[in-house]
């Protein structure tokens, strides 16, 4: 297996040459996954926090359901979204199949459960600490939930990263609804799948290394952002 060593060389060459196609693919991967994770956070934070704070019948069922949905197979999500937005499907008139929008929708469905379930856990723990205080102030839920989310904001960044990690690494759903179209819907993961199927194993692994590096930089950036923000907050 000389592929390993040649992969590192290839990955290095790809990076230093600023290959236009590669940059386009990286750009699309980032764009799709970041938009998906931002929207998933907008939905998932309040959803998870509400389940954590509110008491209603069937709450446990919702909880179990949410946790189970964290394990949604991407292919199934891809298929569901495809059947919805296919021109023959109920949402066919939107005309968004084989577009970045379709991939964003699939990824949102995949990561909302992750964001919501992890948020639920975080907020529940936090709520226990503040519960009495909130009660004594007689605050309505509409005030409690935003306050808790704001207070947990640094921990919630980790939740966002977990969602982002799933989104950027995912291939099963986006290849179905995006179609892996060159210069339109080709992403890092779908390129890796394509090169593997062409037998270009070294190139596929090199792209994988680039993806790993990308993930690493984003995690490091968020870590730095969080550290400096915390520093400012407590200074």
């Amino acid at each position, binding site marked *: 297996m000389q592929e390993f060593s040649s992969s590192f060389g290839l990955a290095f060459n790809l990076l230093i040459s600023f290959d236009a196609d590669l940059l386009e693919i990286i750009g699309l991967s*980032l764009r799709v996954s*970041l938009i998906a994770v931002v929207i998933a956070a907008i939905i998932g934070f309040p959803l998870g926090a509400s389940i954590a704070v509110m008491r209603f019948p069937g709450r446990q069922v919702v909880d179990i359901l949410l946790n189970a949905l964290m394990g949604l197979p991407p292919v199934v999500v891809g298929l569901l979204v495809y059947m919805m937005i*296919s*021109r023959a499907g109920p949402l*066919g008139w939107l005309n968004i199949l*084989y577009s970045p929008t379709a991939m964003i929708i699939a990824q949102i469905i995949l990561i909302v459960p992750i964001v919501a379930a992890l948020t639920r856990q975080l907020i529940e723990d936090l709520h226990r600490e503040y519960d009495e205080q909130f009660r004594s102030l007689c605050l309505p839920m509409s005030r409690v939930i935003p306050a808790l989310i704001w207070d947990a904001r640094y921990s919630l960044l980790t939740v966002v990263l977990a969602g982002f990690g799933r989104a950027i690494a995912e291939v099963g759903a986006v290849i179905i609804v995006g179609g892996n*179209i060159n210069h339109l819907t080709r992403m890092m993961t779908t390129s890796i799948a394509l090169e*593997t*199927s062409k037998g*270009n194993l070294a190139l596929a692994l090199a792209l994988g290394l680039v993806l790993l590096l990308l993930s690493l930089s984003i995690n490091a950036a968020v870590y730095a952002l969080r550290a400096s923000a915390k520093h400012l907050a407590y200074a």
Partner: protein
Amino acid sequence: MLKHTFLMIFLLLMTDSGIAGKSLILQSTTSTANSGLYDYLLPLFEKDTRVKVNVVAVGTGQAIKNAQNCDGDVLLVHAKAAEEKFIAEGYGVERFDVMYNDFIFVGPPGDPANIRNLRQAVGGLKKIAESESIFLSRGDNSGTHKKELSLWKYAGLDPVVASGTWYRETGSGMGATLNVAVEMNAYAMTDRGTWISFGNRQDFEILLSGDKDLFNQYGVMMVNPERCDKMNMQSAKTFIDWILSDKGQGLIANYQLQGQQLFFPNAK
């Protein structure tokens, strides 16, 4: 500050480049895409006509299914019987021959079933079945898979009863199946275009080829605009006319990889 940074990033990401001008979706088999033919042809087509082609490369079975759902404007695949059914059932308008090449049997140089000097595909399959040598099937309802099944039928054999023993169905694309075959030292049937462009051949060889039963015809057709009112009929027509024209056909004949011609134009 933090909030603004996020907002900025978000807005930056939302700005969509968008697709300007005319375009069409080509539902295609994988071999024509993976072999680099489209990378060669389509920029020339786009220059001639200003129509952008978005290729969705999946197996023939899936490409036909997608086209039946109106998720494409043009279909370019290689399973004549299925294509004719597609037309007969009203999903497509008219089918044209575009080009051909052939299927080949590849396998390890040791050739355990001893098919190397055979002339006929059916004979090769019989030997593989007799010796119970491992044979990798696509098992994905693709054009190549349909062809392979028809050859087994022609040989009077039913390999599916041996599924999981010496007959192994990967359920994946041609390249993925070849990757498995190479690892398992197994036989596989592939179109010649995919094989020549395949990057992980290791020491595998073409062991059987040249039988007229291994003929591989590619066809092109437009999705029926009466069923799919949102399709891009004009662009689809432009594409089909172009690929069947002398220019398109000549370019197909010109395309070479590693000094070999991959596809032979035969539009009437």
